[in-house]
């Protein structure tokens, strides 16, 4: 398919200098009538929110409200924003684990945690979430026609246990995030075959080579499978499926899109590199979306038990302990609001980027749905009621630009209802998700 290249996306490098980045295609060539391409993102930040800076300060109707401090960075995308009030993380009220563990485990899965050896919360232990996450269900539906079904990205999400995972391909099967831009580049862009200077697509000798190598690898897997236990055979089946996915991708490695520059190596544990890592990952994700290399992503900023300082915001508290401060404490309040605003700014940057890429009569931003939330409602009390949740985009499925009280008959609905709505919005026809006893169908407030 020949795509018209009509737009530049700019990548603002760490120095603040504007660096012209790749030419991007118009994803829907003129006159083409195929269904619009939709994208989906789960976005996690840790330790709850300061509610007094989260909920709109005044509202006369769903569409007439005044954004509070934390959402100011998103003001430029007000028409895409949906603020949901009175949705509970009911599924975090059961199963093993402590409140941070249960919250992050269920946030995008609607499941309890499994038993396991991750230690937390009141002397209990827990394992991974007991089911697939919503992004992976959506990826299974819409991610198969792109080279990558999904991307998992993280910024200092370096706790490598249940605290540091938001995406699951199945029960007990977490997907680790890429935590530095160079890894994202190598995963997504390095092997792309792109048009040469005269616009012709070169033949890729690697494709045939890789295919023959992967054929041999698949044969070796099958050979070994005949000689191992049934448990081991299951592992090898899973391995084989992933190798087949790599084979499938070979046919999709040629795209009409330029590669971004190779990012510098950064330290995923460095507080100095953290803002650069975050913005570069947002920019690389933007380009991957714009080039239609992937349509689903998860993005995790840090983890529940982090002890991270944000010196570029002059916020020198240690993340998780800081969130335990009384939210009325002026210093803690200002530090935590500043961090939340910075997180909101990452989302704004994503939508700024995507809004600059035309796609038929709309932009990529118009076709991207994102859910931002956290694993506890208020950090100092570890509540799971009235969760702070922001949706961005999704205007093709529900009316955006609203602040919506979701209470139903005096009761807060379960967030798993929201996950059903998100799946439906992305074309997954499903009426329940996660633990069925907590899910009654799509969220009525968005119907």
């Amino acid at each position: 398919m020949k795509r018209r290249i009509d737009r530049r996306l700019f990548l603002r490098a760490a120095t603040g200098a504007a660096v012209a980045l790749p030419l991007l295609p118009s994803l829907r060539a003129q006159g083409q009538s195929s269904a619009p391409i939709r994208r989906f993102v789960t976005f996690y930040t840790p330790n709850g929110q300061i509610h007094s800076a989260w909920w709109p300060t005044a509202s006369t109707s769903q569409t007439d409200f005044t954004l509070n401090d934390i959402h100011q960075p998103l003001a430029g995308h007000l028409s895409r924003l949906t603020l949901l009030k009175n949705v509970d993380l009911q599924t975090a009220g059961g199963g093993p684990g402590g409140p941070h563990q249960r919250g992050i485990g269920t946030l995008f899965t609607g499941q309890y945690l499994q038993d396991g050896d991750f230690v937390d919360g009141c002397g209990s232990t827990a394992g991974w979430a007991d089911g697939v996450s919503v992004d992976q269900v959506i990826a299974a539906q819409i991610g198969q026609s792109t080279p990558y079904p999904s991307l998992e990205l993280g910024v200092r999400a370096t706790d490598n246990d249940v605290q540091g995972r938001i995406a699951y391909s199945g029960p007990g099967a977490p997907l680790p995030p890429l935590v530095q831009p160079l890894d994202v580049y190598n995963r997504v862009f390095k092997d792309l075959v792109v048009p040469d200077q005269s616009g012709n697509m070169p033949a890729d000798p690697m494709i045939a080579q890789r295919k023959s190598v992967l054929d041999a690898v698949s044969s070796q897997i099958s050979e070994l499978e005949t000689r191992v236990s049934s448990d081991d055979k299951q592992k090898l089946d899973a391995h084989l499926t992933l190798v087949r996915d790599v084979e499938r991708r070979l046919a999709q490695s040629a795209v009409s899109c330029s590669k971004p520059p190779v990012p510098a190596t950064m330290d995923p544990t460095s507080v100095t590199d953290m803002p650069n890592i975050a913005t570069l990952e947002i920019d690389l994700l933007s380009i991957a979306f714009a080039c239609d290399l992937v349509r689903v992503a998860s993005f995790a900023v840090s983890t529940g038990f982090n002890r991270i300082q944000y010196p570029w915001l002059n916020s020198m508290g240690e993340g998780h302990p800081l969130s335990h401060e009384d939210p009325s404490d002026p210093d803690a309040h200002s530090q935590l609001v500043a961090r939340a605003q910075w997180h909101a700014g990452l989302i704004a940057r994503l939508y700024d980027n995507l809004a600059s890429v035309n796609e038929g009569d709309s932009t990529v931003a118009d076709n991207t749905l994102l859910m931002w939330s956290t694993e506890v409602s208020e950090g100092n009390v570890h509540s799971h009621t009235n969760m702070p949740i922001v949706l961005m985009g999704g205007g093709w499925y529900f009316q955006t630009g609203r602040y919506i009280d979701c209470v139903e008959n005096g009761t807060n609905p379960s967030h798993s209802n929201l996950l059903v709505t998100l799946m439906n919005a992305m074309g997954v026809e499903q009426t329940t998700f996660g633990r069925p006893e907590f899910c009654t169908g799509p969220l009525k407030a968005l119907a």
Partner: protein
Amino acid sequence: MTDSVARWIGLAALGAIACSNGPHTAPPNAAPTGGSGGGAGMGAAAMSSGGATSSAALSCTTTAPGVAPLRLLTHVQYDNTVADLLGDTTQPSQQFPAENVVLGFSNNVAANQVNPTLIAAYQSAAEALAATAVSSRLSTLAPCPDGSASSDCGHAFVTNFGTKAFRRALTANEATIFDNLFDATLPQGYSQAIELTLRAMLQSPQFLYRVDALHAPTPETGAVALGPNELASRLSYFLTNSTPDDTLLAAAANNQLVTSSDVETQARRLLGTARARAMAQDFMSQWLGLSTLDGAARQASDESFGPSELVPDWKSTLASFIDDAVWNDGTLGGLLTSPKLFLTPKLATLYGQAMPSDPTTPVSLPSERSGLLTQPAIMALLAHPDQSGPVQRGVFVLQQVLCVQVAPPPPNVVAVPPAVDPNATTRERFAEHIADPSCASCHVSLDGIGFGFENYDQLGRYRATENGLPVDASGEVVGSGDPSLEGPFNGALDLASKLANNETVRSCVATQWYRYAMGRVEDTTDQCSLNDVRSRFSATNGNFTELLVAITLSDAFRYRPAMDNQ
């Protein structure tokens, strides 16, 4: 449920406070769980009498095999393996997604399965490794010179190199798959055919996984001794985190890896290698949780160093200390009491010492330092950016050194370190924990130990005074479960001497290293093996070499259950 994290500090008192946010959080492990194996040193009662003496409750008369699932090579094992097979020291695993961590250990088998990112990374790594190997080392890798066009050369490569890569001889079918790949590629050139074959080998599960159990000609029952190839891999991947060397492969091939004496001979040989020293560092790094030091900010009041500037220095001085304690002194007691401090130029300045002319020569500071727990890296690890961390230090000693699990604070408390005050000591500011009855139930135990380290600030500096006030480093062990440890002590040096030859500490360290060796948290099937290991460690006065040898001689290391689907 395992009985690994069996004892919990303060739960009886905490239950009502900490766990009030839902009925589900009532602690399931509140009562010490001795485990169906009779405790095996993990229950409070058994621990208090010492791991080595708790065997009376166990019946260990039959062989107790250890589970043997497919195990992915860990990142460090992958890097070492390709270095040993191909001479490639580029450490490709730096591009792999992070490993999942269970109770501190990133080599946990169950928690580390393949995922799309890892499969893609394996492909990239294999391509880079094969390209480099063929362009720079073809003559040592394959039997014929470049330009030769013989199918036989390729098949010989498959047989010879394949045996190293798979750590056993290839089956006929496995060889045929590679032979066919080689033959099909040969028209593009010999080196190209070798390269593609190598790429396929490095992505095959027989290379990426350690395979301990293959179908036998006859059905199996009971405990099954690992075959020589499998045992060779277990030994080398535990003790050296790498593929079996030629000596080990030859021993396996020549029926010289069968008896416990055979195993011990090879284990002791491997423990003399540089790779074994690196393994000990890897274990210690995971046990001690050193990765959380990466990127940690520790500030000096005069800002003489950048916030994370000293992290590499702390890590290198600790590595030198560990190497010296484990391999020169050789005992747990030495690790816990050695007064040595290895210096870097920056640390010499910071700690007011003259930099030795030979940087590998430590200084001895018997009035300031006593063992691992007083090493700068550990004291800086267990600290806040601007002050020491008495609570973290208490938790660390209880969890990592005594294997007592500590419950986190209740959800509605302010778990924030008190603000720095130039007119008070850290201890005075933290003393609020003890004053508040709802906090005291736990903090009497945490702070009781943690305050004993008040002679060390957040930069690992020794201090006799703080803000001009004398440091009070008196402490008290409460809730250790070991009567011989309970009670007051005076400072970290005194505490170290109490811990040095303590049976609870030995039992805990043996357990930690066993978890690392097995790649899993122990369960009831491990209790007899674990007990043998603890006994040997204790009987040799905490000798590390004997501990590691004992693990290789345990039933769980040498035997597996019969396969389920013959």
